[in-house]
């Protein structure tokens, strides 16, 4: 979940966005206390609805130091997943931007589109690079490793089937800041290359 602004001014209005793929329904709730870890998140003090959609604008109730968010997402075939996040009024970190700082120059998709590899490296501005973690997702193919720290490299292995692919890097600065970047590319003989 990405929030804007990062720090949550009490009584202000902010936007929440969930990184979702193939999601048809996303229902949002807010809670003044942490969601209790049970079979599903439970708000002991009573949850209130915030709206639906993968991105929405919410007014923040006055007096909260932390807004505890919950989103229940449903896929087209009915699969469900719940997620929670914290949106702090005193966020110690920043919402880092995400850059792909290195793409393997000689093993690109243009040369071997169906069995290619792509070396990628996440970095975050603002001096948080060393402690930031990066989580890598792909709609096809596989990242190994799928989670990196600092500026360690990961490799994306292209799928054996041609087609469009979305690559995503989610970066967290370890202090509450979250951001992501996506790339759309085409795997196959007529590959379009990487397009941030």
């Amino acid at each position: 979940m990405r929030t804007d602004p990062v720090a949550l001014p009490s009584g202000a209005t902010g936007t929440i966005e969930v990184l979702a793929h193939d999601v048809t329904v996303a229902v949002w709730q807010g809670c003044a206390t942490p969601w209790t870890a049970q079979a599903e998140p439970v708000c002991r003090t009573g949850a209130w609805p915030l709206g639906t959609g993968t991105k929405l604008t919410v007014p923040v109730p006055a007096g909260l130091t932390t807004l505890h968010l919950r989103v229940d997402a449903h896929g087209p075939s009915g699969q469900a997943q719940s997620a929670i996040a914290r949106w702090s009024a005193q966020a110690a970190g920043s919402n880092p931007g995400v850059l792909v700082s290195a793409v393997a120059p000689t093993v690109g998709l243009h040369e071997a589109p169906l069995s290619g590899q792509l070396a990628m490296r996440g970095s975050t501005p603002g001096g948080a690079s060393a402690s930031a973690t990066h989580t890598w997702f792909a709609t096809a193919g596989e990242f190994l490793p799928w989670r990196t720290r600092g500026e360690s490299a990961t490799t994306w292995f292209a799928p054996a089937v041609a087609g469009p692919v979305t690559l995503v890097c989610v970066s967290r600065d370890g202090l509450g800041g979250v951001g992501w970047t996506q790339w759309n590319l085409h795997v196959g003989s007529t590959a379009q290359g990487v397009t941030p």
Partner: protein
Amino acid sequence: MMHLRCVAAAAVALAALLIADRAVAQSDAVVEGQVVELGTRKPLPGLPVLLPALATETTTGDDGRFRLTVAANRARGMVRLEIPAFDHEAAVRRVVLPASGLVFRLKPLPAARFGSVVEAPTADAARVAVSAETARLVPGNSGDPVKVVEALPGVARTGGPATGQLVVRGSAPGDTRFDVDGLPVQQLYHFGGLYSVLQDGWIGDVRYRPGGFSAEFGNAIGGWLGLTLAPLAADGVHGNVDINTYHAAAMVTAPVSTTWTVGAGARRSYFDAWVPAVLGKAAKFTAAPRYVDYQLRADGRPAPGLTVRLLAFGSDDELQLVTAAPSDADPATQGFGLRRYFHQIQATANWQLGPKSSLYLGLGTSYQKLKLSPSATTRFDLTFDPVTARALWTQVLGRDLTLRVGGWATAQRFAVDARLPLPTKEGQVPLPLSAAPVLSSRETGLGGDGALHADGRWQPATWFDVTAGVRAGWWSLARGTWAADPRLTVRINPVPETAVTLSAGLYHQAPQPDTTSEAFGNPNLGLEASEQYSLGVQQRLGGQAQLEVTGFAKRFNGLVVPGSFGGPRYDNLGSGLVRGAELLVRGSAGPVDGWVSYTLSRATRIDRPGQPERPFAFDQTHVLAVVAGCDLGSGWRAGLRLRAASGNPYTPLQAAYFDASADVTVPAAATAPLAARLPAFVQLDARIDKTWTFDLWRLTAYLEGSNLTNRANVEAIGYNHDYSQRRDVVGLPVLAGFGVRGSF
């Protein structure tokens, strides 16, 4: 006048004595020498020394020395000297009269080396004593005698995350206490449970009490494991050097006067030489794993009947690593740090005050340090320094009655600096470190406990005795609290070969320290209690064999459990029940010795009144251990150990939700707590020893194979990062270890 007569008579008597002595010296022959054990140089007292042809004999003294005098008319030529076989091979030698400075080095028979520790009936309902010499040779122990308890009845098998913890008769690991020579120790094993913190050469025997122990022991609702120090040999310099797969160790002892013997030893592991190379790509060690320990000892007999033992020992374990990539399951876990060390000094005195009275005094203190870094942002730093004093006075009051009275007192300062999530308690689903609320605390304080105990053993007939006692304890918990624990043991010997033992008793202990913390727990917690009952039968089967069958039951009350929502973090509303039976068959026949241990039990808990009963986390229905060794001759010995145990209960997990702030999937229980069970554990270990015995020293080399069948024993259930796939954690595959030990 009278005075002059006395002087003259004395002078005459002295002259007669001198003349007589000169006559003996000139005509009688003396045969003198010493009998010691081959290889160890241990003096062998009480052995007969015979000159059959001259019908003359004597016995060796405490120092193994003997002296025979042969009358002058027979003291010529060569005679046959014999030392008959008992625990050692017989010696026969022809000697020329007179003879002095003879040394006989007798080779020990297997029965001497592997004899059981013989004990008189004690106030404890059940106690198993195993000599360190026997325990060291058990396959799978890597030469560590303390680990013999893994193969004794009532002890659940622990592995995986619980390796090295002692689970006795359905009690939690923290419910069992340890002592060395009667004074408590806080840490028994180095990390991973690989080795105990005392070198085996210092240990005389391992005394294990699974329950029903006397009023002498307390602040434990489980079992009690004691290590008795081996007396230091006063006959010369002794020592040993031990080099094996894991560590190198050395110790030496020497008498420094007629009354005192001192000793020193040290041990260091060398994992740090090879583990980083093996794991170099996956993890970077900022401090490679290693353990170090040391021991200093002094034994003295400063007065007749008084034995004093001084011991200083310590241990230091360290491990710091940083993983190359964040953990798949929990990005907060990017490494791990552990540093644990202690220094302990203690003094004990056993004083035989008279033929019917004895006194034991003990005083010990230690400095304990534990530093944990589960992640880059969490830490736990604990320091405490307990001081313990105790006394035990034993008085025989008559033909039928023996009284024991004693006391314990412990005081300790502690300091905690912690930034951690709440620890996961039994039956709870562990939260990923990234998603768990973190608490911070800095606490210092002073605590303590004390107890007075008394018991009397009344034996009105040789076939019947009863020991009744009470222990009154006080603990400096928030409110200050005390408890009185009555205990009773009745022993009946209907026939000399059979003993029936019944026991009942009440036991209390303080809650675990983390649960009484101001920040992490509830400082108003009360004591935990157990009622223990047992009925045992011991039957001698002839020869060296003995059978013991014991039925036991234990009820827990006031167990500390997590509180309900809105209440204190912990309260004393837990309860539990354990019932079971144990079988122990020990024996030796010819070159073969060993034992079979089997426990059938069921241990359950109820977390709060009204909640359903659930299995205890270490509930193992069946636990079997078979230990056998065989002397093959020429210094060869082979041994096998088979262990089998029901798998521990566990709680299957499933994904509950994704914590987007922490980038981690949070699990939830898929069933009731601990409703599933791991597969059974089976492991076969073997060991072969070869000992070369020289006149003055012994050299032993051994090869040990663990998990010979290469069975993949499941130690814990693991999952992938989103709990969509199960990835079991299995134990070690077949492994070989070896070592060389030289002793003199």
